[in-house]
């Protein structure tokens, strides 16, 4: 089945030690998203890729970076994790409309992976 796969499911790292989370998709969707979700909170968008175009949210800390080497893969790099970065990280994909189309927003649902729960020691 086509799906969004996140690895690892659980990641433990030390304070300040860089960590990379990965996401792959077999849906051939052109948009990929990274969300941070803390307990009892809504998912918070960190950034997204529209094809190869990187779109950072204004309030995403510089500590968070992303790479999308090809359509199928996207990585979240946390350069120096702090205790406040402990959270569930969710990857999602969607098929968005071409930007030249008249409609301003996508009407296609986002499809999520199972998430990576990050713990900081």
């Amino acid at each position, binding site marked *: 089945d086509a799906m*969004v796969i*996140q690895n690892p499911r659980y990641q433990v790292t030390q304070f300040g030690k860089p960590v990379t989370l990965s996401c792959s998709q077999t849906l051939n969707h052109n948009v990929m998203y990274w969300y941070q979700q803390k307990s*009892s*909170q*809504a*998912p*918070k*968008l960190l950034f997204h890729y529209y094809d190869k175009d990187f779109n950072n*949210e204004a309030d995403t800390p510089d500590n968070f970076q992303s790479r999308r080497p090809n359509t199928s893969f996207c990585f979240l790099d946390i350069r120096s994790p702090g205790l406040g970065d402990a959270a*569930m990280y*969710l990857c*999602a994909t969607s098929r968005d409309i071409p930007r030249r189309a008249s409609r*301003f*927003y*996508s*009407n296609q*649902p*986002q*499809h*999520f*992976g*199972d*998430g990576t*729960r990050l713990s900081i020691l």
Partner: protein
Amino acid sequence: SQELEQSPQSLIVQEGKNLTINCTSSKTLYGLYWYKQKYGEGLIFLMMLQKGGEEKSHEKITAKLDEKKQQSSLHITASQPSHAGIYLCGGYAGNNRKLIWGLGTSLAVNP
């Protein structure tokens, strides 16, 4: 950041009972999505609503979007333990291309 208002925050029902979860926006929604999340897992897409007055059903779950496209409800008929989880609504409002979210409704179904 702008959020959708979800109610109730949590719900405990007896198996077999019906229940409704609401999601309200202060702005017109141009797409409303319902997701289910089990603890420690990702979000599972349930249904998408776009048109005012639209209603969709899948198995025992029915979602509706009001005519003004500012309020949606998710109704579960004859609830089962498998329905337990956190239900989140997400939507596009105004000119914002970023999906905004409710805080979720935690549902427990007692056998």
